[in-house]
């Protein structure tokens, strides 16, 4: 049953002589909801940047759905079925919430090169956009300028934009960062629900251990330039190395 959707093989990256990763390997199974944890500066976001093509690794392979995507442009990787939501909200601020979603749908359908037909003339796209807005709880804010949304809603919109791409693999970089405690759990529930409903493989980075151990099936720990451990939450929370290196002070 478990075939990998993403395999990282022997990945290395350094910045100006600073080694960030040395020979990291792991694979993500299709349909999995997993977390990546690690101390600050462990390179979690850098790992996402490497996977999505924002950065090019010095060495190693990244196999997505059987294809080595190292060296491909981010927009081409997106078209293969990989989407991401960002740690810092990354939306189109002077466009409406609705437009933010619609442009993602249009791009997925490769409809960007229509020059003379109004973008809002397709009922089908409009319906899809509202479905997505409903699923992230923003349907009532469709006409609002997205830059004026509250922070939590901007993060939800960011996730919505990623969902509109109908990804096979969704990478979420600290999806609840900066949210109030109530919002956090609401969003975590949302993520879990979307995962259940949409048949997407999800990998998220998170600092909050309650969330990590609460919803993920598998946890990967990045530390000291490499993958320290991976396994189900119960195994990770009992792993001595992990406790020593990372959880030690907290648990």
């Amino acid at each position, binding site marked *: 049953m478990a075939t990998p959707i993403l395999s990282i093989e022997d990945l290395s990256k350094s910045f100006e002589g600073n080694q960030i990763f040395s020979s990291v390997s792991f694979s993500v199974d299709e349909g999995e909801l997993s977390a990546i944890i690690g101390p600050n500066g462990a390179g979690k976001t850098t790992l996402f940047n490497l996977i999505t093509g924002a950065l090019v690794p010095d060495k190693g392979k990244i196999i997505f759905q059987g294809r080595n995507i190292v060296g491909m442009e981010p*927009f081409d990787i997106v*078209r293969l079925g990989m989407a991401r939501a960002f740690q810092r909200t990354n*939306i189109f601020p002077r466009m409406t919430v609705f437009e933010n979603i619609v442009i993602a749908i249009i791009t997925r359908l490769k409809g960007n090169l229509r020059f*003379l037909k109004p973008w809002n003339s397709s009922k089908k796209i409009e319906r899809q956009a509202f479905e997505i807005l409903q699923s992230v709880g923003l349907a009532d804010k469709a006409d609002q300028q997205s830059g004026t949304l509250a922070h939590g809603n901007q993060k939800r919109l960011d996730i919505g934009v990623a969902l509109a791409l109908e990804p096979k693999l969704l990478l979420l970089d600290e999806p609840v960062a900066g949210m109030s405690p109530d919002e956090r759990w609401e969003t975590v529930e949302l993520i879990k629900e979307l995962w259940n409903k949409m048949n997407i493989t999800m990998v998220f980075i998170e600092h909050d251990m309650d969330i990590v151990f609460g919803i993920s099936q598998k946890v990967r720990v990045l530390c000291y330039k490499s993958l320290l451990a991976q396994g189900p939450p119960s195994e990770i929370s009992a792993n001595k190395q992990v406790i020593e290196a990372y959880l030690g002070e907290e648990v």
Partner: protein
Amino acid sequence: MDHMTSSSRTQWITGISVVVVLFVLPVFLNEFGRTGEYWIWVSTEMIIMALFAMSLNLILGFGGMVSFGHAAFFGVGAYTVALLTKKADFPLYLALAVAPITAAIAAAIVGWFCVRLLGLYFAILTLAFGQLLYMIVFQWYTFTGGDDGILGIPRPDIFGPTNFYWFCLVLFLLCFFVMRMIVSSSFGLSIKTTRENLERAKFIGINVKRYQLLNFVIAGAFAGLAGGMLAELNRFAQPDFLHWSESAEPILASLVGGMYSLAGPAIGSTVLIFLKIFLQQIHPSMVELWAIVLGAAILVVVLFAPSGLVGLYQNICKKFQS
């Protein structure tokens, strides 16, 4: 929704009234003899420069890219019309149809290099290419006439000042509607996403540079048509059409009129030309004050109406509604 349709209805009513006034304007101006004829000429120039300003704003306002070399494509269009009508005996219509094509080719070559860079570096490279084209036109005496330019572009008999004004107005309106369609199309929305957030645009699957280049070429084509029209209006083409100071005019026009609306730059351009000529009419020596007046106007806009005259108008409307 009712509010939306009523505001778009007022927009249509305003638009149609403006168009009607513009069509009737020369009939009215013709009553004033020589002065009237002069103002018809000025109005024609305003229409042409409005088209030029709107073409730049496809890159500036909708694409979020500052280009200091847009006059190069304006100039290429002007020289296309000048050379084709004067040296190859092309009819004006055909020459005007070729102008946007040659300008688009020039924009494709220049743009291919420029979109590789971002922000200030993009702006400086457009400036460099613009000045390069300017120098070529300035120096190539056997082909472009060098600093003399090309004089005596033939004028078809049917084009008296009034007819030519109407002809330019029709072309302008056609371009206006095509641009309107472009900015509200899927392509237009894609361009806006690259303006709003380059990184996110990339990560929804948009090949940002390709779209920026396409937009640059489209803007260049419209600028080329405007240049061709100006060459015909003046009946000459000169290297100054390509000079970087010419590139500044549509930028200032967009700033004054408002770059986040389609008509803003056209309005800004018209207002600035009117101010300049008004100053000239008070007393010829007043032109020397133009730089001060322009500076003051821009200062006022930047400080008190950062989204230009159109933004100011929208704000006033909102205040009245509430």
